[in-house]
């Protein structure tokens, strides 16, 4: 294994910087682990992006990809925006980020296959992406096995930072528990306490944990479940499930389906008259649900999300993100793009803080971020050391009436931005046990 002089120098700086941070550098990091240092050349590092560009999650996936690409371009160019995030010079630690995107169709096996290729063939120093929670779980397991950092893309299941949590996986999106705890009081205040609710639940880890959490917190608000319809992922015709929901006598329809499934099921719910008789609540909105269903159907709908461009009035870095994204892609970014964008910056900042690409040091830096929170597009945030879940604010949205929209992408009002600390589960609540560093 060969080090160049520059690498050694940077490593030395990193070790010194690391020692200044609490918890970092306490133990010696191995000189060689995973794709480090083989994957760090004198002028570049490789990042592998596994993204569903086809299939049920393709809308979110396409947006996610654009977010990663924008952040990578900005970081590589090293302009004003990268500086605002606290990065120095061009690239990360002077290395340009090279990347490849593989379309994984939202299927965990394809995610693992392409991430393995990125790690073995391209010596990826970091893997990021995925939209499905099932994919995220598979990828963080792979990352921990291969000792390569994995930054989770869009993924709402509690299991990711719960029972399936991994030392090498970090999630910046809120989990289902946080989203439900933030959302339930807001909708109960708006729609009432004595409410009968019907749930449509996609049959995979995301669906089940979002259901568990929202059922729990809505019950605490006095809501009563009258129907629970579990449907396979990628269902095209929801008529049978919707008939049961339509006949349930519910006041509120809680639709947990995500991506293309959310569009199809909501469209059909409208045709079955469900939306006439019931209010629609979407615990986690999909990136383009607004555009794909139209403001007519989405008006008055409550939901949570990772990011809405309206938060740019609150956070300065959100403003630069939204402006540069719109200039580049001619539409307003959704939370897919935001996660990709923010994650890339978070990783770059952590690497620069650690002063090395060594994943052990980068992980310890992120785990120590409570003492030194990151300033981001959603304000100050940090990763919890115990489960790698980001503690972060959660925007609660309500669909605008078409007549109230100021322009064609002005779909939501921000009803509230819930404070992260107040909605966190206890770190061991979902049985998280992070594995070893080495």
């Amino acid at each position, binding site marked *: 294994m060969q080090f160049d002089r520059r690498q050694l120098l940077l490593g030395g700086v990193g070790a010194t910087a690391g020692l200044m941070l609490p918890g970092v550098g306490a133990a010696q990091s191995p000189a060689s682990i995973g794709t480090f240092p083989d994957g760090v050349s004198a002028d570049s590092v490789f990042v592998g992006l596994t993204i569903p560009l086809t*299939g049920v999650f393709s809308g979110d996936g396409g947006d996610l990809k654009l977010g990663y690409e924008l952040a990578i371009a900005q970081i590589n160019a090293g302009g004003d925006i990268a500086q605002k995030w606290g990065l120095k010079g061009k690239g990360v630690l002077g290395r340009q980020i090279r990347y490849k995107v593989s379309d994984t169709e939202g299927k965990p096996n394809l995610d693992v296959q392409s991430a393995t290729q990125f790690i073995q063939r391209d010596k990826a120093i970091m893997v990021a992406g995925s939209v499905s929670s099932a994919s995220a779980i598979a990828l963080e397991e792979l990352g921990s096995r291969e000792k390569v950092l994995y930054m989770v893309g869009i993924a709402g299941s509690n299991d990711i930072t719960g029972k399936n949590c991994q030392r090498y996986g970090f999630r910046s999106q809120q989990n289902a528990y946080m989203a439900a705890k933030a959302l339930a009081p807001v909708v109960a205040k708006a729609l009432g306490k004595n409410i009968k609710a019907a749930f449509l639940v996609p049959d995979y880890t995301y669906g089940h944990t979002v259901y568990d959490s929202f059922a729990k917190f809505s019950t605490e608000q006095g809501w009563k479940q009258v129907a629970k319809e579990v449907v396979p992922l990628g269902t095209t*015709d929801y008529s049978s499930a919707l*008939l049961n929901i339509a006949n349930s006598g519910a006041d509120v329809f809680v639709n947990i389906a995500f991506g293309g499934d959310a569009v199809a099921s909501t469209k059909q719910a409208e045709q079955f008259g469900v939306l006439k008789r019931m209010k629609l609540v979407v615990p986690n909105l999909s990136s383009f649900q607004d555009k794909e269903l139209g403001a007519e159907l989405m008006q008055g709908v409550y939901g949570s999300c990772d990011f809405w461009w309206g938060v740019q009035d609150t956070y300065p870095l959100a403003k630069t993100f939204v402006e540069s994204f719109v200039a580049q892609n001619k539409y307003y970014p959704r939370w897919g793009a935001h996660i990709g964008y923010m994650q890339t910056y978070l990783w770059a900042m952590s690497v620069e803080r650690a002063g090395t690409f060594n994943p052990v040091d980068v992980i310890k830096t992120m785990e120590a971020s409570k003492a030194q929170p990151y300033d981001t597009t959603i304000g100050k945030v940090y990763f919890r050391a115990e489960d790698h879940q980001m503690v972060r604010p959660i925007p609660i949205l309500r669909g605008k009436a078409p007549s109230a929209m100021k322009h064609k992408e002005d779909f939501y009002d921000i009803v509230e931005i819930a404070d992260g600390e107040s909605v966190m589960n206890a770190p061991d609540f979902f049985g998280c046990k992070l594995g070893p560093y080495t």
Partner: protein
Amino acid sequence: MPSWPVLISQAFNGLALGTLLALVSSGLTIILGTLGVLNFAHGALFAVGAYAAFVVLQYTSSFVLALVVGCAFMLVLGFLLERIIIRFFYDRPHEDQILVTYGIGIVLVECIRSGFGGNAQRVPVPSWGQGATQLGFLIYPTYRLQLIAIIAGLLLSLYVVLYRTSMGLVVRAGIENPGMVGILGINVRRAFLLVFAIGVVAVGLAGMLYAPVVAVTPDMGANFMAQSFVVIVLGGLGSFPGAVIGGLIAGEIISLTSAFNSSYSEVMLYALMALLLVLRPQGLFGSEGRV
């Protein structure tokens, strides 16, 4: 045990779901039954139909016109595919046919994706189909009720053309012995061309009619293709009546299982298919040794 009104509602929904599945499967089975080609581009052609309707609706806002123009487009597409590619594969093994049609499917889906992106497109329910209709204790979407009637009419016409006209006879005779039919002075190749195009129009039309109900995305056909294969296996490979009956059975299985537990509906469908394959490998209407 669900109440009787719920069971009856689900049985009715099974009928609606079944007719839709029957139409989706009919295009597949017409091409398979008459030309012997296993068309794996079926799902992609379904999506092409939906997008054709979407495009025409952008300009005309008339759903009927969208159907008419969409059908004309699918007919031309069917002609082109048959002339340029498919006809060279009539005499080739099924594996070759599967590969080439699967490839066509990928190309078509990617064309859609590059033209329209991955997000779902909005195709609204036509003005004449909006709202819900009260059927006794059951409230059912008006558009879906109309679909049952429209599709029943379409399936009947398809059956008559292919099984009760001289053209249908020519095609079936052509499959058995093209040389003999040729000696009789009949242009078999032209008949094949027409049958393939009719199959393409049928699946495209299913896509157009379905567009207001589902999420219109480039990959929307994948699930329909999987289900329509189950349907034609149930009904018997290449049997048109089999596709119709198979579709109705599949619709009822999915819907009635949902009355008890929605998460088992697709499992039950595949379980039934497996059971049938053990008891009657050729399907309900299939003949032994066929295809």
